[in-house]
């Protein structure tokens, strides 16, 4: 036993993720690797028409195929209920299909090959309907309706109309969702402006491209309990929602999450394949596994929300912002998922990234026959930032002000409560701006490039900046934004941390374990994290909104603090010392001042356990952040903390080809406090690359309702040689509410890149492009048009 132990901390260190050895060793068992005894394989027949009535489905030949256990259509599941954010979506389509991904029938068979063969034997007769592929057309008078009333057209679904709260009755127009927000008086703002600009920005379809595709295994036990192995990001919300959809008692539903091969928001909603697999399990009485092919993942998993955004903004000659008016058209696709609600987040950037006294904001999500959008890292913020930050550069240029100075003049300070009601208790925005600008040499480069841009030469250099504001302390969207923790210690000083928070590769297990170590003075190797079984773990709202480190972290700290209190009290009693003078270090109880060892933690735990008043150290804690729901005018403080960042992007534009190379990204991120430096770096670097793909290479090409590039050959993820040099700086503002002062930053790094790249291309070439992505052909066309105009 050592004599004395000095205080040590894991906070801020570079710590390898706990699951790294398993993953790097190829031993992680993803849903693909799980096979249950007696398991059947499910496959889904999707529509071959974009918009059509289903006249007849003939499944006889498929049912007759040896090895097929069930073939189901909507007619076989009259009890099915609509799913999704607006409950406008039957898992199996009843009378019509509204997009190419639509599910018509499903098969459960002994092998995937048999299931596949059975799909080919199903005959479907359609009657085509006119296709809406442009959201502008959906709004035209007389446009065909995508969800005519009454839904389903037949009396078969009458029971749904009575079913409380979930009845889906169709829509009299093609408008799926609207958001309206107002602060101040934009007319007054416009009167006070010296410069007014208005432009329309076009944001495209991209998709998550998780390495682990969508999948589920569903089984019922003999008592009718449903067990799902699922990749969901929101197990507890799903438990409730599945109960509703399946008309089951939620207590009979258990969700286990095998290690998830990427989420990024794609697994926040329930998608048709999930209830369909449950139907198949019910129909066959066997476990049914359904895992997407990569092509299916491209066709039938959600996308980022495409948006057409018109921004009108103004400022005074002195650089003060005066107003912003925004109207958007969101292409909702055929059904409503979380994409339709992205205006909720976009609004925060528009109203509160900078100080703007007057804002008016109208958004419309309209139905089309295109794929539908879900939630995706950044949740609308990439789109809003793309427009807002380009306008910041354009306004700065219009009044002859340096882009950095213009931003600094309007940037938020700590303590600010914005007109929308967001309270910035910690705010390192100005420090982010100056740090990123100084580290990158932004101002000098900006001027030099500006001067070089008219000179002859094929390659042009440009530098551009953009900043972002995003929730960093959870987001109060549901009645609760909380997370529960159960912590138990064994007789050997090991800790089992049972948390509601899901791990989707972001490294939450590691950070939570670290926070517990900090309180209990145990090494990281002494902590096990259990986080993937609704039957065991306490409630959590889900892994989204950059919330896990903040919310689950505070919850874990709460449970650990309680355990610490118990241990120190017991130790104090045993040693005849004062608990306040004791500390826990490296698995020992020590005197806080000197570090003198009193006893080992394991020994104390055993003495507690095997004493007269036998006691095991077990604690639990539930953390609910002090954030507030917005009122019906969208005002309120939705997050307990807000994250800030500025990114400076340097590009080289090849004017012969239009190829834009990202040379360097310098980022300054207000992260509250660094917990795991390695994890944080990984999160930021990965986010930058995701932002880069959004800016430059990725595009799900949707033409007349058809996805033209459902594969990695023509859907272009960024490859290793394209990844830029990165210089990432962390600003530690020590948030008062954050776990050890930290804020959530999961989404932050992806948000600014496209906007900063747009500004950099302009700095390099003088050409401003307001549509994404900046593919070589798009850039070349813009350069070509500018050259022609100049000639």
């Amino acid at each position, binding site marked *: 036993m050592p004599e004395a132990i000095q205080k040590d901390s894991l906070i801020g260190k570079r710590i390898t993720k706990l699951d790294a050895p398993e993953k790097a060793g190829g031993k992680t068992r993803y849903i693909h690797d799980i096979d249950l005894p007696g398991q059947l394989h499910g496959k889904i027949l999707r529509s071959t028409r974009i918009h059509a009535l289903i006249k007849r489905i003939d499944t006889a030949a498929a049912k007759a195929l040896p090895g097929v256990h069930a073939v189901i259509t909507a007619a076989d599941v009259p009890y099915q209920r609509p799913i999704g954010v607006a409950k406008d979506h039957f898992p199996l389509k009843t009378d019509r299909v509204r997009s190419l991904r639509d599910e018509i029938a499903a098969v459960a068979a002994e092998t995937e090959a048999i299931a596949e063969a059975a799909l080919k034997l199903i005959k479907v007769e359609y009657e085509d309907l006119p296709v809406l592929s442009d959201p502008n057309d959906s709004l035209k008078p007389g446009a065909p309706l995508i969800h005519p009333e009454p839904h389903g057209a037949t009396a078969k679904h009458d029971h749904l109309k009575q079913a409380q709260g979930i009845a889906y009755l169709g829509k009299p127009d093609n408008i799926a969702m609207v958001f309206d927000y107002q602060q101040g008086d934009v007319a007054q703002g416009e009167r006070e402006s010296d410069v007014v600009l208005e432009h329309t920005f076009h944001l495209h379809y991209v998709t998550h491209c998780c390495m682990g595709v969508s999948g589920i295994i569903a089984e019922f036990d003999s008592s009718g309990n449903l067990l799902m192995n699922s990749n969901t990001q929101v197990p507890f919300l799903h438990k409730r929602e599945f109960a509703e959809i399946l008309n089951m008692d939620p207590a009979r539903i258990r969700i286990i999450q095998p290690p998830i091969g990427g989420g990024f928001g794609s697994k926040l909603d329930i998608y048709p394949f999930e209830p369909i697999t449950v139907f198949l399990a019910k129909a066959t009485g066997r476990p049914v596994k359904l895992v997407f092919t990569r092509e299916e993942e491209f066709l039938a998993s959600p996308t980022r929300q495409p948006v057409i955004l018109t921004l009108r903004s103004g400022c005074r000659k002195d650089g003060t912002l005066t107003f912003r008016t925004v109207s958007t058209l969101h292409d909702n696709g055929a059904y409503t998922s979380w994409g339709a609600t992205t205006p909720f987040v976009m609004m925060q950037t528009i109203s509160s990234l900078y100080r703007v006294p007057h804002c008016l904001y109208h958004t419309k999500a309209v139905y089309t026959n295109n794929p539908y959008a879900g939630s995706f890292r950044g949740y609308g913020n990439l789109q809003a930032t793309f427009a807002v930050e380009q306008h910041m550069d354009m306004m700065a240029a219009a009044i002859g002000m340096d882009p950095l100075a213009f931003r600094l003049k309007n940037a938020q300070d700590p303590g600010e409560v914005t007109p929308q009601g967001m309270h910035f208790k910690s705010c390192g925005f100005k420090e982010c701006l100056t740090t990123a600008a100084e580290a990158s040499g932004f101002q000098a480069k900006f001027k030099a490039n500006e001067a070089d841009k008219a000179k002859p030469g094929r390659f042009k250099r440009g530098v551009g900046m953009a900043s972002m504001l995003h929730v960093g302390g959870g987001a109060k969207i549901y009645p609760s934004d909380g997370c529960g923790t159960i912590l138990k210690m064994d007789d050997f000083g090991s800790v089992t941390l049972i948390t509601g928070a899901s791990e989707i590769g972001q490294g939450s297990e590691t950070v939570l374990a670290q926070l517990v170590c900090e309180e209990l003075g145990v090494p990281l190797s002494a902590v096990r994290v259990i986080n993937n079984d609704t039957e065991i773990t306490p409630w959590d709202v889900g892994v989204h909104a950059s919330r896990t480190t903040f919310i689950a972290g505070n919850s874990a700290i709460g449970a650990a603090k309680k355990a610490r209190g118990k241990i120190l009290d017991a130790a104090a009693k045993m040693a005849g010392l004062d608990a306040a003078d004791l500390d826990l270090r490296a698995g020992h109880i020590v005197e806080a001042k000197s570090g003198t060892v009193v006893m080992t933690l394991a020994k104390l735990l055993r003495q507690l356990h095997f004493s007269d008043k036998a006691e095991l150290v077990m604690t639990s804690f539930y953390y609910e952040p002090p954030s507030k729901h917005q009122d019906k005018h969208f005002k309120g403080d939705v997050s307990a903390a807000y994250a800030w960042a500025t990114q400076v992007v340097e590009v080289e534009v090849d004017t*012969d080809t239009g190829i834009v190379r990202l040379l360097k990204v310098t980022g300054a991120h207000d992260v509250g406090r660094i917990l795991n430096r390695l994890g944080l770096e990984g999160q930021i670097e990965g986010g930058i690359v995701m932002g880069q793909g959004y800016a430059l*290479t990725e595009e799900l090409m949707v033409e007349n309702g058809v996805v033209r*590039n459902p594969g990695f050959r*023509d859907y*272009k993820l960024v*490859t290793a040689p*394209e990844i830029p040099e990165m210089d990432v700086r962390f600003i530690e503002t020590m948030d008062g509410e954050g776990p050890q002062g930290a804020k959530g930053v999961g989404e932050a790094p992806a948000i600014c890149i496209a906007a900063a790249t747009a500004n950099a291309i302009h700095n390099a070439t003088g050409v401003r492009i307001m549509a994404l992505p900046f593919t070589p052909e798009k850039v070349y066309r813009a350069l070509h048009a500018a050259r022609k105009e100049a000639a």
Partner: protein
Amino acid sequence: MTALDNYVAPTSLEQAVVQLQELGEVTILAGGTDLMPQSHAGRVKFKRTLMNIRRIPELHGIVREGDEIRIGALTTITELMEHPLVREHLPLLVEAGDHFASAQIRNAGTVGGNICNASPAGDTLVPLMVLGAHVELASKPDDTLFRRSMPLPEFFVGPGKTRLAPAELLTAVRVPIPPKGFVARFHKFGTRPALDISAISIGVGGVLKNGVFTDVRVAFGAVAPTPVCGCAAQEVLEGKRLDAATIAAAAAAARDEVHPISDVRASAWYRKEMIHNMTKRILEDVSANH
């Protein structure tokens, strides 16, 4: 994927061509890097028999035969890039290999497969055309082994279509060793630096002596159903000095002679622009470095 009835793996050329003749309905498998994705996507249906040709020694290896270099059909792109004969005499093929797919695909994909797959975007095709390559074909219609050879451009009929007869095997490609003073360039234009399918590609070769460019060959990839000769550009360049006026005229001729399509990778207009700009760039580079 299609279910297979029959799988054969002949161990000699003789055996392979006999089986091809006898079995009739055969799909040939080399590296499988085209075949397998195409089959998974349902674009290619396996015929009754799948023939793995990788165990045929005669299809492997790179050797010098007189004034020619014979590259066996099963030569992988990696082997091609690393072979001393290729590096010494045909550096153009090394350049092409450098931009070909990824290391994994280069280790599996073969030159023969690239040629027989007959994609207009196949990255060895344009350089091989510029080098004046011939394909070597073998079959056994009766009792004797029948070999024939044809200039590469003649081999291609359309996307995925060649003059390969049903029971014929491509055994090798033969490339004449270029004369002294031969210079050549290949440029693959894709939208990213790695793992990309060419949106267009350009190859230029010829003998540069005392500033004059002769025996010029120009070829383009991904602008027509097959890789094509840049005959008009070739004509502009033949016997000329590579001065600014000639380069401009050749680039303009190149742009005017191609008739590409628009697809997910690029529009026809952009392809023509890139043919122009890249032809110009290549010629300027040749002129500046020689």
